[in-house]
């Protein structure tokens, strides 16, 4: 499909409001069903015909990952829970010491990863579980796009772990606290968001460091465009796009900056097919931004509710959003 961006038009008339009644920490689609993950207890499943509140646990939800089939959540109850569009919610793993599960990831063939403190765990679909201890608390987990490999971000670097191999993980070292971690789509680069307002990256072939700084705040949202050419991030009063088209990635290149606003861009979600990015800001604005010409379309007007969740369906026809204050909705772009 082709989106026609018309600057005179907003998408409010195409928005179906959803009452989350609590902070929304993530929004994903499971097929045609939108899954709004709340800060506590529940996932709100919204399909064309109904809204269902599915309990995942009695406590806070600290981490979320989704793959179009299911939503995995980790919580302060020490449980890893898989919730599916049919409103089933199953505890797939429990931490034996009831530690907080504050990082999760979904891998290939039904594999799930989670972290509690300094321990990372991977469980494959057959229930086999493997664990890795790293020297400090885990800031981020990400499966590689190909193969069965997990990036585990922590203090002073990232460990690259083949859970099915006996060899020790390789370590990419860089001083500081590494939080979110993400692989480029071609698996040539690994990027982390740090405690400082900066990203750090490595070109994996030769371990060349990439330093991506200039942010206003800690970057809490990163996403790759569908073709992998751009890494979109929040963390500034605009959308920041790092170019990854060439073999050197963003080395010695400046990011493209689009969609300036009077508030920090907090959440970004790349359209699954086109070079189009949904950007959510601290004052409630959601913009759709086209990379080619920088065209902007207002998807949600500012109202001082910080945007905390954005997610596209697989076709790129529906965009779900949520705010810290509990507003949520689904925008239909068809």
């Amino acid at each position, binding site marked *: 499909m082709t989106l026609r961006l018309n600057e005179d038009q907003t998408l409010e008339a195409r928005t179906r409001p959803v009452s989350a009644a609590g*902070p929304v*920490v993530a929004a994903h689609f499971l097929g045609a069903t939108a899954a709004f993950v709340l*800060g*506590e207890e529940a996932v709100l499943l919204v399909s064309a015909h109904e809204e269902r509140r599915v309990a995942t646990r009695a*406590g*806070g*939800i*600290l981490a979320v990952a989704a793959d179009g089939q299911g939503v995995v959540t980790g919580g*302060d109850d020490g449980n890893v829970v898989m919730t599916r569009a049919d409103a089933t919610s199953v505890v797939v793993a429990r931490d034996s010491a009831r*530690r*907080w599960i*504050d990082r999760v990831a979904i891998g290939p063939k039904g594999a799930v990863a989670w972290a509690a*403190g*300094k321990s990372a765990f991977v469980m494959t679909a057959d229930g086999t579980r493997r664990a890795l201890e790293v020297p*400090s*608390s885990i*800031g981020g987990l990400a499966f590689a796009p190909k193969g069965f490999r997990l990036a585990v971000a922590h*203090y*002073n670097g990232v460990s690259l772990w083949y859970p099915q191999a006996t060899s020790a993980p390789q370590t990419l070292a860089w*001083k*500081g*606290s590494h939080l979110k971690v993400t692989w480029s789509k071609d698996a040539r680069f690994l990027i982390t968001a*740090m*405690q*400082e307002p*900066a990203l750090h990256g490595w070109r994996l072939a030769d371990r060349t460091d990439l330093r991506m700084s200039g942010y206003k*705040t*800690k970057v*809490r949202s990163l996403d790759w465009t569908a073709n992998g050419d751009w890494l979109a991030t929040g963390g500034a009063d605009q959308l920041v796009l790092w170019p990854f088209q060439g073999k050197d990635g963003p080395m010695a290149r400046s990011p493209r900056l689009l969609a300036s606003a009077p508030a920090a861009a907090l959440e970004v979600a790349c359209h699954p097919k086109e070079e189009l990015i949904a950007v959510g800001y601290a004052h409630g604005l959601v913009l759709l931004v086209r990379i080619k010409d920088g065209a902007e379309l207002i998807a949600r007007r500012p109202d001082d509710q910080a945007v905390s969740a954005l997610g596209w369906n697989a076709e790129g026809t529906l965009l779900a959003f949520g705010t810290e204050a509990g507003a949520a909705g689904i925008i239909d772009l068809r």
Partner: protein
Amino acid sequence: MTDRIPVTVLTGYLGAGKTTLLNRILSEPHGRKFAVIVNEFGQIGIDNDLIVGADEEIFEMNNGCLCCTVRGDLIRIIEGLLRRAGRFDAIIVETTGLADPAPVAQTFFVDEIVGRKTKLDAVVTVADAQWLERQLHEAPEAKNQIAFADVILLNKTDLVSAASLRGLEERLRALNPYATLHKTQRCHVALDAVLGRNAFDLDRILDLEPAFLGPADAHHDHDEDHDHDDHHRPDPTRGPGGLVHHHDEDMRSIALATERPLDPDKFFPWVQDLVAKDGPNILRSKGILAFKDDPERFVFQGVHMILDGDHQRAWRDGEKRESRIVFIGRELPEERIRDGFAACQT
């Protein structure tokens, strides 16, 4: 934002009574709900719904400052607790007996999300009257905790004589004359003496008068519930540069005052350079400043090299426009600080 969640940090050397104070806070019929972050989770009986074990993971920020260390685990825990923000009114962080309070405090100034949603209320240090003298002698951690404190509970006063209690108070005052001091047994203290202190709130920096032990103090050391907010102020003996200091071996406080207006174009570069160079040794700093041709009071406070400052309010009619600054730290370069401050005066 006005509804930031207050955070109280409880420190104190091993065995001083931190857990006793924590349990006292939690069990009082105050109707408030606390989220509690403890170390050594599971080893002590604490009855509270929201209780989290912490790892005390400290790391250095990549900002060129060796002393800018923060508690990474605290950032993660507070972010997690904020998912359930409606369930509690305040957060209490209990540190280990050997902890340096600075990384805890700095976390609230360095992390943007934590700083936006929560505010550091006060660092409360519990000191063991029976063993304090020895701890101060043997453990730099104990001294740090006292020097850093906004509120000190001199606990277990029933285990020492009146004479040694007075000696201990003098010792505490020498280390930190700016903290509020309470003498307690079994940490019995009114809750508002330790909670809701707003010690890091720029709007609450009212005066920077050090507390001295007045002669009267010797006669009422039995009053564990008594509020010792009323600082005793015998006329401080001032040196030629308006300098007052109290020193305890390496750890000391330095106070400077002047009625000559300050030149902001000289003061800010000076104080920033000072904390950049001597930040590792400066535990706390505070100031009330009168700038030339500025109708408003400027206030600042700092932890090591992190400074936070703003205009506070207009100087009142008849109010003495005096600038006062205070540094607490170890091996402070007194002459250099005095000369630097003098050079900022117009």
